[in-house]
């Protein structure tokens, strides 16, 4: 079974703090995506990274794809209550349209 492990599983921090969420696998991916899911809704894509070592920024969110294309991280600067949600990473394998989703990180930002 191909697995994507995310850590931490749960994270609760105060507004204004910084945090990093990790997504790790023993497999190599052609691309990796990060989604955010709010209660009662489906996941919504935040970013796609496709090149080993790639760094993408989306306002206060910074995404990095590992050099070996096996892992990724999401860093949030100055977290806000609106960042609260379930963060899911998802990897695509070469020549395969299917995604393998990670186990998820449930983030709570306390005002």
């Amino acid at each position, binding site marked *: 079974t191909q697995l994507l492990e995310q850590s931490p599983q749960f994270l609760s921090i105060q507004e204004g703090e910084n945090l990093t969420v990790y997504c790790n696998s023993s497999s190599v991916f052609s691309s990796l995506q990060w989604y955010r899911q709010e209660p*009662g809704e489906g996941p919504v894509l935040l970013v796609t990274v496709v090149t080993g070592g790639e760094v993408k920024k989306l306002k206060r969110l910074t995404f990095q794809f590992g050099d070996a294309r096996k892992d990724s991280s999401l860093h949030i600067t100055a977290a806000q209550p609106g960042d609260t949600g379930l963060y899911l990473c998802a990897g695509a394998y070469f020549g395969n*349209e299917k995604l393998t989703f990670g186990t998820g990180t449930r983030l709570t930002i306390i005002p």
Partner: protein
Amino acid sequence: NAGVTQTPKFRILKIGQSMTLQCTQDMNHNYMYWYRQDPGMGLKLIYYSVGAGITDKGEVPNGYNVSRSTTEDFPLRLELAAPSQTSVYFCASSSPGRYEQYFGPGTRLTVT
């Protein structure tokens, strides 16, 4: 633009009953997917389709069936509901060669 729509939003089934979860997308996407999400977990792929008339099994297909007669619709059938099928079901769609999957709002199913 409605995107991906799913019906019903909630459903309670008795053990052994059958039902069909409906999924429709209006983005002319070739690829469609069904996932289940158990409490506190990520998404597991049940079935997927790369075009009308073509379907294939995902990671957890047992107890489910699908059909794809049109580009727009991808219904998921549960024949003999079991408590293990209690979950939230998401339908998604994407275009070939594009990484982003667009998700519907989900169907929360309880089997008792």
